[in-house]
Structures are given as structure tokens and as C-alpha cells.
């Protein structure tokens, strides 16, 4: 059976991991390649790098990070952040990333999804959606790192992204992000039921139980977390072990 995926996310700025990762035994906890290796060894199912570099130099450094990562791990990884054109996608995929994640650029110009899917295939194109609650069972799409409201309905945008050729949705519940009180279950369930492509739930992971909830009740195909793994609050192994005891299929 197809396994539910557990995906750590790394924020990278100018070639360094930010959000102070605290691991024992790492020579350089700021080195994205070393962290990618560690997570890959711990049986992460995929990785996501979010490039938050603001400068052109920082973006060039990211390509170097991608090449080194691809040469050192044997699990798939996605790169997001600052991808605005087919040329940007090409540069990142050629360097060895398996998928690219589009967020603000896709909202500003939805055709970018179609262009990417046509050239590289839908399986390469992840559309990341930052969602904030605006009433009962209604969520609005935010862009620019969650700063700008767009007036767009999250469910409609997810469906439009799928129609344009997205292969997967990375859905972040801004209301839950950083709170560690669990993923946005209702949001995730509604989006997952509204589209025919896989949905990665993000934002709110604080315990192993939260992963169970979002992968069952929330109907997510995969769950992403950052700080809970970076700070060794729980390990990927521990999350997977728990999921297995609860009958969720995971790659052990």
C-alpha cells in the first residue's frame, strides 16, 4: 500500500539553515546538506527546502546547495521560494531537485503552473498555499510569506491549481503554524476532498498524535513539520513508529 509521508522542511537563507536547528552530534547544524543527510538517514520520506534568501547571490548559492544535496541523498526533495519563471524552475530541477514549489508567483500569474507542468510534468510542480481562516469553514489565500491577503478562496484556488497542472498541494494552515497544537484538520480535509492530487499538510505539528490526526481525520497524504524535528522534540522514527501502532501505513 502507498505509505503516508513524513516530510521535514528546512528554511535556507544564503546557503545556511535558519531557525537554529539544535541537533546533537552534527558538525555544522547550519549546513543544509548535512541536515538533509541526517533526515534522509532517519527515514524521512522527502525533504522540502524553502529558500528565503532575498538576494540574487543567495539564490545562486541555493543552486549549489541543491547539487550537493542531490549528490548525497537518495530520497526526493522539493525546493520552494522565489521561483518566478520557467527559467528558475529549470535551474533548480537541473541542479537535482525533484520538484519545485510555487506560492506567490503562481497566485500572481497562475499560467506559470501550466507552463511548468507542460515542460517538466505535473509531478514536478507543487503549489504551496498559505491559508488563513476567514469565517466558518472558509479560508483565504495569503501570499508574500503570509503578509498579503488575496481575497481568493483556498478551496477554489487549490482546484484551479490542479486544473492548471499542479501535481501536489502543500497546504499551510497559518492559524496553526508555530502553535504546536495540531494541524488544521478541517482545512486539510476540505482541500484534500476537493482535489484529486495529493495534499501535504503543514503548520501546527507539536506531537506524534497530531500527525496521526491529520493523516487520518484530515485526509492528508503527507505531513510536513519543521521545528518539532529540528529541536529534537520528536524524531521521524518516533512519529512513524507511533503511526504504525495506530495502523497507518508508513515506510518504516
Amino acid at each position, binding site marked *: 500500500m502507498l505509505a503516508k509521508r513524513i516530510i521535514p522542511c528546512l528554511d535556507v537563507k544564503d546557503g545556511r539553515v535558519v531557525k537554529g536547528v539544535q541537533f546533537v552530534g552534527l558538525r555544522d547544524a547550519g549546513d543544509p546538506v548535512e541536515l538533509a543527510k541526517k533526515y534522509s538517514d532517519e527515514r524521512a520520506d522527502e525533504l522540502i527546502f524553502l529558500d528565503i534568501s532575498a538576494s540574487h547571490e543567495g539564490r545562486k548559492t541555493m543552486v549549489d546547495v541543491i547539487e550537493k544535496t542531490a549528490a548525497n541523498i537518495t530520497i526526493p526533495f522539493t525546493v520552494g521560494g522565489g521561483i518566478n519563471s520557467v527559467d528558475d524552475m529549470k535551474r533548480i530541477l537541473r541542479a537535482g531537485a*525533484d520538484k519545485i514549489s510555487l506560492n506567490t508567483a503562481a497566485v500572481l500569474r497562475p499560467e506559470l503552473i501550466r507552463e511548468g507542468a507542460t515542460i517538466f*510534468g505535473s*509531478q514536478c510542480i507543487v503549489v504551496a498555499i498559505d491559508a488563513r481562516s476567514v469565517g466558518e469553514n472558509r479560508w483565504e489565500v495569503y501570499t508574500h510569506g503570509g503578509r498579503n491577503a488575496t481575497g481568493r478562496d483556498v478551496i477554489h484556488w487549490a482546484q484551479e491549481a490542479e486544473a492548471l497542472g499542479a501535481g*501536489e498541494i502543500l497546504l499551510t494552515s497559518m492559524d496553526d503554524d508555530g502553535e504546536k497544537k495540531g494541524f488544521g484538520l478541517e482545512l486539510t480535509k476540505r482541500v484534500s476532498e476537493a482535489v*484529486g492530487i*495529493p495534499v501535504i499538510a503543514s503548520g501546527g505539528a507539536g506531537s506524534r498524535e497530531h500527525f496521526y490526526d491529520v493523516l487520518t481525520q484530515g485526509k492528508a497524504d503527507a505531513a510536513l513539520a519543521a521545528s518539532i524535528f529540528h529541536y529534537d522534540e520528536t524524531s521521524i522514527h518516533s512519529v512513524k513508529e507511533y503511526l504504525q501502532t495506530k495502523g497507518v501505513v508508513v515506510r518504516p
Partner: protein
Amino acid sequence: MIGIIDYGMGNLYSLSKALERLGYSYEFASQAERLPEYSGLILPGVGAFGDAIANIRELGLEQAIKGYATTGRPILGICLGMQLLFEKSAEHGENAGLGLLGGEVVRFRGDYKVPHMGWNQLIIKQKQPLLNGVQEGDYVYFVHSYHVLCQSDVLLATSDYHQEVTAIVNRDNVYGMQFHPEKSGETGMLLLRNFAVQCEGVLT
């Protein structure tokens, strides 16, 4: 020396690095006349079937690959590369493939998520040297919206995604893997190594 066929479709970097880590030498091959120099060929690929086969034809690689297959040296198609080995595909209209294996490529249809994306288990159908060390139930990484329907005699392994999904195929010297071995952890590396060993001709 293994030739990784470069016809402008997909991520060759990860695959080449995987071979490098296994200690096998490779070259990217896009010139038809050079294919006979290699001890084995890998046909990778992501993207659309129609574009892929058009590129292969444009580069004059179709006859070269078919000719290579008759020499008895190993060929491995990966993901879309595996699908290209079959007779035809229904992806965006009907397209003929290389026809090295009998069968066709159809879209997943049903009330479930497409692409079939993520880690799924191998169900072993025929134990062959390519599968040395691979256990029933080992996980590999799939990502595809189309899958191959073929005769059971070419199936070495399948996977289960709302139906039996063709995962590893083989007839004589022609091999295919629907998943990405270069992205499938230690199981994928084992499969790649087993293929590379066949290319070196040292398998006993």
C-alpha cells in the same frame, strides 16, 4: 561504461550521482552512433510520453536503441523511460513507443489521488538477479499518472495502488522500473547496482 541517454527529458543529475556513489562510470549519451560503445544503457525520463518519443526520434535514437537491444546488452528504462519501452501510450492521444516490450500505457482512473505519488511496496513476481537482496514489501518511490498494462510473464515486481501496478519488468536484456531507483533509498541503490553489475557482465 554505462550510457545514460540524454534526450532532453528529466533529471539526469541524481541518477548519475547515484551511479557515481556505487562506483560505476557513466556518460551522458545523446548521439545515436555512440550507443554501441556502452556496456549498458539507461533510458531515464520524466514528462510527457509524446514529447519524449518525439525527442528520441528527432535525435535519431529510436533505431539506435532498438539496434542496441538486439545486441543482448542490458537496457534499463526508468519511470517514463520504462513506459517508452512498450508498444504504445494513451497519454495525450495515442503515441507509439519503442515496442521492445509488449503492452500499453494507460492513465490511472478512479476515485483516488493521481499521481500515484510516494513510497509503495514491491510485490515480487519473479525472482531474478536484478532483484538480488530485495525483499518482498521493500518500499520504493513512485510518481506517475500513467501506468503499464502488460503480460504477466514480463513482470518481475508489482505494487498495489487501487489495482496491480507494474513496477519492475524484464524480458531478456530489457529492463524497466516505474519508480525512481535513484530516489528510493537503499532498495533503489541495490536495484541500480544489480543492473550495473549486469552491465559489467560479472554476475555469476
